[in-house]
C-alpha cells in the first residue's frame, strides 16, 4: 500500500517519466538525410512485400520450392546473422571471465549489437515460418520436440535474447536514471554472462547441426559430422570481425557519443581483436584441413565445386588471416579493417554454401533468391540500424553515463536548435 502522502509524489514522478520518454522518442538529428531516405524507401517496400507474403503465401514473393525449403531468409538472415552476432559472447567472455579490461569500453556496444541482431535476424525467422502463429507451441509445450536440433536452437535464441537484454539493461537503467535498479542489474551481469556464453556455444554449433541430417544433400566438401564445431569456431572470428567492422563505422558516425576512454583505446582494441581473429582463423583452417583429409575429399578438388571451395578456404580465410596477423604486427588499422571485411564476406559465402549454394548441388533447377527476398532482407537490416542508432544516440553505450551527462546540456541545445 502506498501512503496517501506519497501519491502526489508518485504521480509527479510518473508524469516526469512520461515526459522524458516522449522527449526521447523525438528524433535528435535531422530526419532528411540520404541514409534515411534510402533506408526508409527500402523498409517501406519491404513492408508492402511482407503484406503480400502474409496474404498470398510464401510463394508469392520468394523463389522457395519443394526442392529448396530454406532460402536467403534462413541462410543469410538467420544463419549468417547469428554468426555475425557471435562477437557478444566472445567479448563478454574476454572481459568478464578472463578479466581483459582493455576491451571493457566496447562491451556495451557489442552486446547491443548482438541483442539487436538476434531480435531482428532471428526475428526474421518469423517471416519465413509458414504458420508463425504456432511459434509459441515449442515454448508452451504443445509438443516438446526435444530430439530436434531446431528445438534447441529456438529455445536458445529466446533465452539468449533475454540474457543479452539483461547484460545490456544497466545501460537502460542509467538512461532512465534508475539508480537502485541499475545496482541490482549490474550485480546480475557475471551470472548472466556465464549463462549467455554457455547458450552461445550450443546454438552457434547448433546452427551447423541443423544440417547433419541433410548429409546426402549438402555437397561433401561442406558436409561433415564436424559441422557443429566448424560453425562454432568460425563464429568466433565472424563475431569479432563484425565488432571491428561495426566499431570502425560507429567511431565516425557516432563520434559525438564516443567516450574518452574508448576514443583513446579504440585503435589498440582493434589491433588486439585483429590478433585474436587471425589466430582463431589459423585454428579454423587447421580444423578444415583435418576435416578435409578425414573425409577423403581429394576427388572433389578437381571439379568446379573444388575451385569454389579452395576460393573460400584460401581467398576468404587464409588471406584475411594473414592480413590480420600482419595488421597486428605493424599495428596497421586499415589492414585490420580490410581483413575484417574480407572475413565477413568469407562467412557469408561459407554459411550460404552450406545452406543454399552447395545445398542440393545436384538439383537440375537451382534456387536463386528473388529480388523481393533481397529487399525484405535489406529492410530487416535497415530497421535494425534505425533501432541501433536510436539507442546509441540516447543511452550510454559508447561512453560511461557520467561523461555523457556532463556533455548533455550542450548537445541538447544543439539538437533543439537544429530541429527548430
Amino acid at each position, binding site marked *: 500500500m502506498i501512503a496517501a502522502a506519497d501519491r502526489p509524489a508518485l504521480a509527479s514522478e510518473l508524469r516526469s517519466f512520461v515526459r522524458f520518454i516522449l522527449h526521447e522518442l523525438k528524433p535528435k538529428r535531422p530526419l532528411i538525410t540520404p541514409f534515411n531516405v534510402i533506408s526508409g524507401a527500402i523498409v517501406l517496400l519491404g513492408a508492402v512485400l511482407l503484406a503480400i507474403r502474409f496474404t498470398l503465401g510464401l510463394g508469392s514473393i520468394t523463389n522457395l520450392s519443394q526442392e529448396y525449403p530454406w532460402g536467403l531468409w534462413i541462410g543469410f538472415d538467420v544463419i549468417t546473422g547469428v554468426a555475425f552476432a557471435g562477437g557478444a559472447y566472445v567479448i563478454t567472455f574476454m572481459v568478464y571471465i578472463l578479466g581483459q579490461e582493455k576491451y571493457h569500453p566496447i562491451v556495451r556496444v557489442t552486446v547491443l549489437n548482438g541483442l539487436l541482431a538476434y531480435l531482428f535476424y532471428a526475428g526474421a525467422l518469423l517471416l519465413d515460418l509458414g504458420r508463425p502463429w504456432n511459434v509459441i507451441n515449442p515454448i508452451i509445450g*504443445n509438443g516438446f520436440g526435444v530430439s530436434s536440433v531446431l528445438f534447441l536452437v529456438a529455445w536458445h535464441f529466446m533465452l539468449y535474447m533475454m540474457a543479452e537484454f539483461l547484460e545490456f539493461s544497466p545501460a537502460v537503467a542509467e538512461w532512465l536514471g534508475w539508480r537502485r535498479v541499475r545496482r541490482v542489474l549490474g550485480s546480475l551481469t557475471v551470472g548472466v554472462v556465464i549463462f549467455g556464453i554457455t547458450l552461445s556455444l550450443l546454438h552457434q554449433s547448433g546452427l551447423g547441426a541443423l544440417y547433419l541430417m541433410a548429409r546426402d544433400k549438402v555437397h561433401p566438401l561442406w558436409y561433415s559430422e564436424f559441422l557443429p564445431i566448424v560453425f562454432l569456431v568460425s563464429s568466433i572470428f565472424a563475431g569479432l570481425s563484425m565488432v571491428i567492422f561495426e566499431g570502425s563505422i560507429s567511431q565516425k558516425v557516432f563520434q559525438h557519443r564516443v567516450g574518452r576512454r574508448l576514443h583513446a583505446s579504440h585503435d589498440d582494441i582493434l589491433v588486439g581483436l585483429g590478433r585474436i581473429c587471425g589466430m582463431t582463423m589459423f585454428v579454423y583452417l587447421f580444423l578444415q584441413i583435418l576435416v578435409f583429409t578425414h573425409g577423403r575429399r581429394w576427388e572433389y578438388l578437381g571439379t568446379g565445386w573444388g575451385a569454389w571451395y579452395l576460393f573460400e578456404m584460401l581467398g576468404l580465410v587464409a588471406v584475411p588471416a594473414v592480413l590480420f596477423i600482419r595488421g597486428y604486427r605493424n599495428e596497421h588499422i586499415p589492414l585490420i579493417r580490410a581483413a575484417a571485411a574480407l572475413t565477413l564476406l568469407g562467412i557469408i559465402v561459407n554459411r550460404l554454401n552450406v545452406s543454399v549454394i552447395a545445398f542440393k548441388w545436384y538439383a537440375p533447377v537451382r534456387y536463386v533468391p528473388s529480388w523481393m527476398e533481397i529487399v525484405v532482407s535489406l529492410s530487416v537490416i535497415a530497421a535494425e540500424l534505425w533501432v541501433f542508432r536510436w539507442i546509441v544516440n540516447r543511452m550510454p553505450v559508447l561512453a560511461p553515463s557520467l561523461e555523457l551527462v556532463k556533455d548533455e546540456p550542450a548537445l541538447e541545445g544543439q539538437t533543439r536548435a537544429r530541429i527548430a
Partner: protein
Amino acid sequence: MNRRDLLKTVGAVAGSTLVARKLEAQEAAGSEPDTMAILVDTTLCVGCQSCEYACVDAHKDAGLEVPEDVDISVERPTSEKQWTVVNRYETEKGEVFRKTQCMHCLTPACASACLTKAMHKTPAGPVAWDVDRCMGCRFCMVSCPFDVPKFEYDSPVPRIQKCTMCWDRVSEGGVPACVEACPTGALTFGKRSELLDEARDRIYHAPDQYLHHIYGENEAGGTGYLYLASVPFEQLGLRTYLADEPYPVYTREFLYGVPVVLTLVPPLLVALHRASKERSVLPSESRKEDER
C-alpha cells in the same frame, strides 16, 4: 560458486537428464518392429495409376487434386496436391513402373527434426502430421532423406502435405486407399515383419525374377514401404546411396553433448572468472562500476 550459479547448475542437470531420457524413449518407439507397412512389388505394377486416383479421392478434404495432362515419360515427384505418383522407368529389362510416396521410416528424420512434434511416428506405423502444432519451419523437408514432405507455398495458411498411409482408415482397421484400389496385387498391406517374410518368400520362389534385395528393409534405418524389383533399384529412381542407419542418429551425438555442455561449462566459467579476478590485485575502474 554462489547460490545462483549452484541453482542454475542443478537446474541444468535435471533438465538435461530429462532430455536424454525422452530421446531414448523416442528411439525405442521408432524401432518397434511390428508396425503396419506396405509392400510394393514392382514386377506386378502395370502403371494404371489407380492408386493415384484412389489417393486423391480419399483425401479430397486435404486439398488433393487429380493432375491434368500427365506426361508419363517424365518422372514426376509427389507434390502438395498429390501424395502418391506412379512413374515409368526405362530399365535394362524394359519398362518398369514404380509408385512413390512417403516411405514411413521406422525412425523418421522428419519426426526427429520437428520441434513441435507436429510430424510424428504413430505407434501403428504411419508417419502423421498435426495441423495444430506445425509452425511451418520446413525443417522436416530439409531433413527427410527422401524429400517427401511438401509445403503449400501458395497459401497464407500453408500445410505440410504427404502420404499418411491413410491413418484414419488404418486406425479403424481399414486398408489404405491405394492398396484397396490396386487391381494387380502389386501393393500389399500388413504387419512389417510378415511383409518382409512375404517378400523373402517371393524372392526364394522366383530367384531369377527378383533382385535379391528388399529396398526399405534397412535403408534409412528401415522404412514402412518395402520394394521388390527385377532391376537395380537406382534404375527405378530409388536412392540407393542412403545410409542404413536411422537419420536421427546423425544429430544424436550433438544432442547428447548438450547436457554435458550445459552442466560443465558454467562451473568452468565460474572458476575461470574467480581465477582471473584473484590475479588482478587492483580492480580497475570499470570493474568497480560494474559490481557497485
